[in-house]
């Protein structure tokens, strides 16, 4: 039986990564040339990993489902990236960033991994500046910073409201440089559909060429999964339309454990749902909470008028506004972590104080900031976000407050990895959002970009060497091995089965229905009864899917319906595991809020005695219950405390 060994090195916290690097094996340049690595995904994690591995001299094949690596959804991250530079002289440090991250994750992440993340954060900023990322600067020419939720220092570096775009273009440029040097080969419009495991080790993938439909085999000495999160299981989210969990799901089915699947992040500042024709939700950067104040009316009659469209937010006088975050959490105010801000919005809306026509919205108001700083300053800081808001809603946010509501944004759960970012399958690595390792129950704002780049530029390139050092005599993987044929047949059968259903309902309609179940019962708050209901409903829906879904066209062509059908088939299974994990975790921590477990003030109530572990699920076969493994979390260096943002 596979045992979970985290491989966290011994020694003091600040020495772990240094001594680990000294102790792991490395591969000589002559041998690197003989070794092949597959990287799946080209977001910040995948692109930076592929580029760095290419720089080191490995032969890299990198896959993406878009027409170009630059489209990956990291590109949409707006606000910024954290680093412990302490350029503001506000007493920030590696330790403080580490501590904020652990606390924000509600003590459900691995101490050593998080410390390492904070430790390399500074290298990331250095490297990105050297690559030509145009970060915001002040008049001295030095780098500027802003604040983000969950911290009391200014440590977030930014490039207007397009930080993710600029960092991704940096990584993509580094990748392009390696393509020119012929160290990296890119495979755009290719989707990984299965992992190939030979004698217990990851040896390659099966991918579908999305233009021709051809099923292709690719072999390597190691495989890196960097395919991001699985939040699109909820249908409506801030993810891009093609983001999916299929690659990690195939890894899970081939024996990689899936950790903390129920840990999803709900982002408090999204544009609310409008009507039922909507396909996705748009995020308004958290950085807006630096200057925006969140409120709902104090009087229920005002809320009713807002809902009926008889009153505008700007017409409600100051004394009738309830700045509920400032009221409940005076020390952090509008900058409480995401899960806290999200639940507080839900609480007010549930109580009837929602401000839009659906009653599911709160105000994010800039009038105080405009008064204090002037419109020009606000425009310089958030101009593109205000423009985006106006395009979508037809409302000028300089005059009327924005309306926001929480939605699915990120998944902290993912493939279980050890300290080397290796999964339970030797030779298979998972980085960025695809793994579970650094964010625990709730991710700190501006840390997703940090983690993707930390893993790709500075961690994986070291740790993968330790594994590959043992493979220098291993010849190239033979793609005619029976394991490849078997995996390929499995995929072809699955595709044919989907076409053969010849049903009456579109893939999207099933995806929407699944999303409703997930949002209703496995969303912002969860309870035992609802989760059991969700599991039953998902099973029923999944059965119906395979009996009545309509997948038009053929395999050997550009077929977007088939692409979606395969992804939704996996979401139908993944949703059940998410609900199962949420059911098992009878405590509230971070973004996972079990209604049975809350304090008198409605805050999360952890159960450290029974749940201070990472839940790692092992696949046992179709229609069989997965097995739960537990990796106990030990906190040797931080004092585990109740996570309160209410105290001053």
């Amino acid at each position, binding site marked *: 039986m596979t045992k979970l060994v985290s491989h966290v090195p011994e020694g003091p916290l600040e020495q772990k990564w240094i001594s680990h690097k000294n102790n792991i094996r490395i591969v000589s340049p002559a041998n690197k040339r003989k070794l092949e690595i597959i990287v799946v995904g080209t977001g910040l994690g995948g692109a930076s990993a592929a*580029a*760095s591995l290419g*720089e080191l001299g490995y032969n890299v094949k990198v896959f993406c489902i*878009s027409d*170009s690596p630059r489209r*990956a*959804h990291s590109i*949409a991250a707006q606000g910024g990236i954290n680093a412990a*530079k302490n*350029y503001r002289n506000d007493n920030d440090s590696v330790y403080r960033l580490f501590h904020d991250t652990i606390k924000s994750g509600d003590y459900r992440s691995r101490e050593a991994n998080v410390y390492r993340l904070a430790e390399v954060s500074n*290298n990331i900023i*250095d*490297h*990105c*500046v*050297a690559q*030509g990322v*145009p*970060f915001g*600067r002040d008049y001295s*020419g*030095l*780098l500027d910073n802003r604040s983000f939720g969950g911290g009391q220092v200014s440590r977030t570096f930014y*490039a*207007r409201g397009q930080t993710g*775009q*600029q960092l991704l*273009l940096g990584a993509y*440029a*580094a990748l*392009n*440089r390696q*393509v*020119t040097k012929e160290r990296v080969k*890119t495979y755009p419009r290719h989707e990984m559909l299965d992992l190939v495991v030979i004698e217990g080790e990851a040896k390659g993938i099966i991918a579908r060429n999305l233009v021709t439909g051809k099923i292709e085999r690719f072999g390597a000495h190691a495989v890196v999964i960097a395919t991001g999160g699985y939040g699109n299981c909820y249908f409506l989210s801030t993810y*891009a339309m*093609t983001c999916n969990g299929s690659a990690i799901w195939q890894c899970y089915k081939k024996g990689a454990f899936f950790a903390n699947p129920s840990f999803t992040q709900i982002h408090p500042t999204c544009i609310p749902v409008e*009507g039922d*024709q*909507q*396909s996705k939700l*748009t995020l308004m950067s958290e950085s807006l909470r630096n200057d925006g104040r969140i409120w709902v009316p104090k009087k229920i009659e005002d809320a009713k008028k807002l809902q009926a469209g008889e009153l505008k937010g700007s017409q409600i006088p100051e004394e009738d506004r309830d700045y509920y975050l400032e009221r409940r959490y005076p020390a952090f105010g509008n900058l409480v972590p995401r899960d806290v801000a999200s639940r507080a919005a839900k609480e007010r809306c549930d109580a009837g104080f929602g401000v839009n026509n659906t009653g599911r919205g709160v105000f994010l108001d800039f009038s105080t900031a405009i008064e204090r700083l002037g419109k020009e300053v606000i425009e310089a800081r958030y101009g593109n976000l205000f423009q*985006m808001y106006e*395009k979508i*809603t037809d409302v000028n946010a300089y005059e009327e407050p924005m309306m926001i509501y929480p939605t699915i944004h990120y998944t902290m759960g993912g493939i279980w990895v050890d300290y080397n970012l290796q999964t339970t399958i030797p030779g298979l690595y998972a980085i960025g959002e695809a793994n579970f390792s650094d964010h625990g129950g709730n991710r700190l704002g501006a840390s997703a970009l940090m983690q993707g780049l930390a893993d790709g*530029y500075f961690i994986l390139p070291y740790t993968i060497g330790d594994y590959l050092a043992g493979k220098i005599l291993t010849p190239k993987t033979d793609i005619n091995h029976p394991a490849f044929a078997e995996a390929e047949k499995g995929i072809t059968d699955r595709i044919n089965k989907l*076409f053969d259903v*010849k*049903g009456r309902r*579109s893939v*999207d*309609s099933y995806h929407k229905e699944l999303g409703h179940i997930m949002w209703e019962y496995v969303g912002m708050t969860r309870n035992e009864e609802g989760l059991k209901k969700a599991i039953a409903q998902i099973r029923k829906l999944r059965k119906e899917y395979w009996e009545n879904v309509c*997948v*038009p*066209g*053929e395999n050997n*062509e*550009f077929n*977007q*319906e088939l692409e979606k059908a395969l992804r939704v088939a996996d979401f139908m299974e993944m949703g059940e595991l998410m609900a199962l994990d949420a059911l098992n975790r009878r405590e509230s921590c971070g973004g996972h809020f079990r209604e049975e477990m809350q304090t008198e003030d409605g805050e999360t109530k952890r159960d450290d005695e029974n749940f201070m572990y990472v839940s790692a699920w092992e696949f046992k076969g179709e229609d069989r219950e997965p097995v739960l493994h537990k990796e106990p979390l030990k906190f040797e260096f931080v004092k585990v405390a109740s996570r309160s943002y209410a105290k001053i």
Partner: protein
Amino acid sequence: MNFTLKIWRQKNAKSKGHFETYKVQNISPGTSFLEMLDILNEQLINEGADPIAVNKGCKGKKVDPVAFDHDCREGICGICSLYINGRAHGPDNEITTCQLYMRKFKDGETITVEPWRTRGFPILKDLVVDRGAFDKILQAGGFISVNAGNAPDANAILVQKEKANESMDAAACVGCGACVATCKNGSAMLFVASRVSSLALLPQGKIEGARRAKAMVAKMDELGFGSCTNTRACELECPKGISIAHIARLNREFLSAKLKD
């Protein structure tokens, strides 16, 4: 709102295309253009595009939804394209197609939807084109040659605020290709200029400036993109409002590099 859609249909890169007419109904003004296309596809699947297929459920080949590229749907990934009523990204300024809302159209209007039509971007299917040429241009030199681990402290490189801002203006390019599709010459100058200019404005990008400008321009020519004749159409249709002042900077970089040769 109700609309009549004339959409370009083309089975694959080799086949000949044609316009097909469809009707969509009860579209809310707050629906995005791409969501409207989702609704059309849902309709095509539910009804069966071929009238014979109606009431027989989905018969596989007869149902043929419209293929179009889309992903982030918030105007940043740059994958969505579309020529709508003769304009790249449709009748609004400084947006990508995914940020176009149906309130921008008149109720009952007939809307013509075509793919990018330009030599540099061959059509793959219906409204989907191949923009791989953009990747190739950037691979030719759109980077600063720095390996991970080499960098000095971030604040050791000072950048004047105005220069950083201008560099960011150019770097906002999303690589959608509207500039090429709009240009009567099919020129990729604005795309190339945005990268060259963004890096040329930064001290760390200056070192390879000459080599970069020459390599990227040469690659652009090699891939069959046309020349720039300063019509400024690209600037007008760029979803990020990137100014042709950056083309001027590219020309300066290119010329001074060539003069040094």
